[in-house]
């Protein structure tokens, strides 16, 4: 049983890691804790429903549709809601993202109705069995794609000029402006990327389960994942995601499914009390 639990935990954790990476990116670039990230996951799931199930687009086009639409939505939100609040109190900014998630949820439920939708994509749904462990192909694919995205982003940050500018902006907005960086544009791109990563997570989660606004709760797990890993640390976000996936699976298998979230949030509280800069963050940065 344990290997099975570990496998599902890591596979799910990879998806959380992906969503958490988007979350951490937005936070690092713009200092905004995006409580709507969970809803962005749902948006991704319903973009998949729109393209695949309603418009009957071929899968490749569905993917492109999701990425482009999610990027546009993220950028538009930055331009319309986040930018006007530059320099305002933390509560205002948090509340705008919370209100945004309320609005997005309402819109989705109005447009698509309250019932969950099944996703039809050609993604593999079979299972193969290795030494008694049932390995779902979809889980494998989700984990694989997540790791691919994570790898690509690592390269992007390390080796491209724009990636460098994003890291610099995360380090300080005024310093970035002084150095000639178009901070507003960098922020918009960060929001677009954060939204795209959540949407890809949403695509997989909708395929693994169903597309519904219930996925928000799963998407919101990115929050504890990021904080546990270290709010300022990109690798921390990913490891945090894996950790949350593992904890969830272990708790629901060995304790009870209802208790899964509690272990995560208790760990979150402990980390906040003992190591607010996160397991992988740097101490100096944890102080606010």
């Amino acid at each position, binding site marked *: 049983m344990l290997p099975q639990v570990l496998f599902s935990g890591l596979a799910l954790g990879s998806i959380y890691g992906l969503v958490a990476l988007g979350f951490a990116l937005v936070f690092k670039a713009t200092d905004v804790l995006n409580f709507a990230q969970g809803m962005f996951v749902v948006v991704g799931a319903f973009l998949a429903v729109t393209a695949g199930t309603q418009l009957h687009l071929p899968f490749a086009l569905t993917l492109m549709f999701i990425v482009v639409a999610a990027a546009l939505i993220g950028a538009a939100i930055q331009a319309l809601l986040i930018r006007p609040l530059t320099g305002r109190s933390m509560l205002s900014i948090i509340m*705008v993202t919370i209100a945004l998630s309320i*609005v997005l949820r309402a819109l989705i439920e109005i447009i698509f109705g309250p019932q969950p939708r099944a996703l039809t994509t050609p993604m593999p749904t079979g299972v193969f069995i290795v030494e008694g462990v049932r390995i779902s192909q979809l889980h494998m694919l989700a984990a694989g794609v997540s790791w691919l995205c994570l790898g690509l982003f690592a390269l992007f940050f390390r080796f491209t000029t724009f990636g460098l500018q994003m890291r610099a902006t995360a380090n300080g907005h005024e310093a970035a402006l002084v150095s000639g960086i178009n901070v507003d544009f960098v922020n918009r791109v960060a929001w677009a990327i954060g939204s795209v990563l959540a949407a890809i997570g949403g695509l997989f989660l909708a395929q693994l389960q169903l597309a519904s606004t219930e996925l928000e709760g799963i998407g919101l797990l990115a929050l*504890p994942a990021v904080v546990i890993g270290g709010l300022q640390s990109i690798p921390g976000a990913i490891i945090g995601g894996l950790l949350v996936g593992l904890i969830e699976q272990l708790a629901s298998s060995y304790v009870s499914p209802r208790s899964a979230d509690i272990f995560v949030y208790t760990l979150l509280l402990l980390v*906040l009390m003992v190591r607010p800069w996160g397991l992988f963050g740097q101490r100096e940065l944890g102080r606010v």
Partner: protein
Amino acid sequence: MSGEQAAVSAAPAVRPARGWRAPVLLVLGVAAACYLPFILTERAIFGVRLSNMQLLNIGLTQVNLMMITLLGALSLNYLTGIAGLISIGHAAFYAMGAMAGAVFGTQLGLPFPVVLAGSALVGAATGVVAGLPSLRVRGLYFVLSTFALHYIVVFMLSEYQFRFFDVVGIPFEEATLGTFVLDTPLRWYFFLLVLCVLVYVGLRNSLRTREGRAMMAMRDHELAASAAGIDVRILRLKAFACSSAIAAVAGTLYSYYMTNVNAEFFTIDFAIQFVAIIIIGGMGSLAGSLVGAAVWLLLPAVITGFAAQIGSTDSAFGTLLTESKPQLVNLIFGSLVIVLLIFAPGGIAGIGRSLRDRLSVRVR
């Protein structure tokens, strides 16, 4: 001319007016508050019958629930708007209140006033625990700790519920104050009205004390407050204890009013509605909480009214109104929060204040 000078010279002009205006307004307000429930139950004003539409589809129960929500909003506004501590886990205190009510009332059968007092104590204790992280972390990290706390408390409530009751929820008996049985909405109305006024006046007066001023100083400049010899850490815990005691009492009242409570009520959305109310009403303005709670009450009612009027026509808008009413309410509520945050960060109270300033300038 600077604004300060204007304020100074305007004050004497206003004061004689205030001399008679305040008591008259107070009397009118009390009269209106006492007459309101009869309008809503008789569906008539001074003998003239009113249609549902004219009454905005509001019943007394909705007004009562609004007052219970108002208690939560007041306590959150005290914590966030005045003491500067942000909490998005306020529903946890409601849940604690529900749990305290279940233990003291349903299980131990203590009298209602004792249950309320016990719930206030439990709430205050929870508040101190919830405030503990504020001794170590600030800002975002603290907000996150309230978020985590929410999940933990609600989980405790649901474990408790499943241990001693069942999925249906926790039943609550009728509340009685001595011989006064709270068995009709009308009786609840007057009980809640008195309670709301007490809490409002209490919080307002507490702001005028040394400690209240220190709290506002702490919100604006923590360092300045520390420098003035205030132990900011104790003050924070006190603010938390006071705020969560009120919220827990509101949670108990909510449970008794609903006669049955389920852990599933206390979602994070439940917590967020309080934040939305104080943003709509006006952060830091206790009176604003009332405005925010009123919007919270009126919005669904007005939409129901629209739905009743247009619902029969089979336009797309009509179907939208009838079939997605709760979603529409949320859509408008959420959008209102966003629009106010961007264009009027002081909320409706802030808009009112600036209008009044403009008027008083014009009058002079």
